[in-house]
């Protein structure tokens, strides 16, 4: 098995970056921690620093002010890191793509490994997406 597969075999630590968003996706991500979905039973945690993270969850339509910070966060993440774009805004900019301050979508700024569309995607969809990503590696 390759180095990458070895790293991602179990217990992914997630770091969440919310860009210019409406917060729905952020809440659905937090919902994954709550008893009904309970992502911690898979060993997955939301960590406070990207330096501890295996997976970078990005949502929101990224605006011009967020863009340099997203790049900085990506640089700080220890490689290999998996990037997941969450929600319609993360994938394509969603309804805010025509806005004046739009600087995304995410895959124009950093490489993305998985897309989880939805507005917002349900916690089941987010979990399914992350599990699929783990299976791919």
């Amino acid at each position, binding site marked *: 098995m390759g180095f990458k597969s070895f790293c991602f075999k179990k217990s992914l630590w997630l770091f*969440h*970056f*919310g*860009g*210019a*968003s*409406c*917060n*729905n*996706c*952020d*809440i*659905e991500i*937090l*919902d994954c921690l*709550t*008893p*009904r979905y309970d992502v911690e039973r898979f060993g997955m945690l*939301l960590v*406070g*620093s990207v330096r501890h993270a295996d997976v970078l969850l990005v949502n929101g*339509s990224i*605006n011009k*002010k*967020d863009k340099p*910070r997203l790049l900085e*966060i990506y640089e700080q993440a220890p490689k290999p890191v998996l990037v997941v774009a969450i929600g319609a805004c993360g994938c394509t900019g*969603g*309804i*805010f793509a*025509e*806005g*004046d*301050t*739009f600087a995304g979508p995410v895959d124009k700024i950093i490489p993305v490994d998985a897309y989880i569309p939805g*507005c*917002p995607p*349900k916690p089941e969809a987010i979990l399914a997406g992350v599990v699929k990503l783990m299976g791919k590696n």
Partner: protein
Amino acid sequence: MGKQTLIPVGPYHPLQEEPELFKLYCDGEIVKDIKWETGYNHRGIEKLAEKKSYDEVFFLVERICGICSTSHPFAFANAVEEIVGEEIPDRAKYIRTIIGELERLHSHLLWVGLAGHFLGYNTVFMWAWKYREPVLDLFEMITGNRNSYAMFKVGGVRRDIENHTIPSIEKVLALVKKKTDMLVGAVMDDPVIHARTKGVGVLSKQDILDYAAVGPTARASGVNIDVRRDDPYAAYPLVNWKVITAEAGDVFAKAQVRLLEMYESISIIEQCLTGLKKEKEGETEVKIKHIPVGYGTGHAEAPRGEVFHFVVSDGSNSPARHKIRAPSYTNIATFKKSCVGQTISDATISLAAVDPCYCCTERLAVALDRSSGQRIMNAKEIIRHSAELTNKLLQHE
């Protein structure tokens, strides 16, 4: 002046979901000043609205903020219907009110959970969000989505709540009421929560008037304002309910107001469901073909306070100007009064107490050392700091 320490709270970390940067200027443990750097969430929504048709604007304003997802379409609909001068059918009024109050329920439960998390009470966080799930199930049942409901249109609502579904809605509501009882009891009577929230983050009546704050933030300081009663809209004049206020103006009072409001919301929803049964099914809108030239002001009481929309129409199919003011825009500025003079741990719960919704506002805190360099405490350290204080108090129990 003494050493002051810089503690970053933001822009991106799990203390807050949205990106913000608060700079807390501290002298040791005490916050001396607070500055707010924003712009991370600006999406240019007001300008975007001018490119969309009135119908499409509903989908846009729904996504200003996920938590106040109904309040913005509510205020926008009120503003546009004022330009048109038409009244919507009673059935539509009841449905709008039901969605609005369900939103208040889920938003307050969300807030209770987050407040618990900031205090270091993760159990409260888990419970509150677990009992929020049945409310989201109700939303999914009625509208098809847990968030962003697409229920509003000019002249009425997009979908009906069929009378045969009402018993199952009432059943879930009864479950939510039971769990709310439990949560309210646990939170309101807990001596450690009293110790962490009473006398903390106080806003006086004068502060509220000076900043023109709204919602539970204002009502907790004895300022008795609520759009639903002051300038009634939808089905609010058709049902019985009361406005909840408190006098102390501290974090505990704000929590008290929100928790007791949940009972009023449940009562309003039950009365609306009864009202629906008496109205003819299917009459969910009055057809409006054209928005005349003019302007309209619409406001609604969101969970955080008054949301205000101002719409100017030039007779075309898109708004000529759409001004949006979310409650957090006025409420967040009160941080200067509620956080200064507090310890860092208290400042975090004070920040949370106005239930700030940054995405509503604009489409998070750092403690700075004024004289020498900067010592930076990161987000996790801040929550841990707050949790340690709670633990210390628990040990004395």
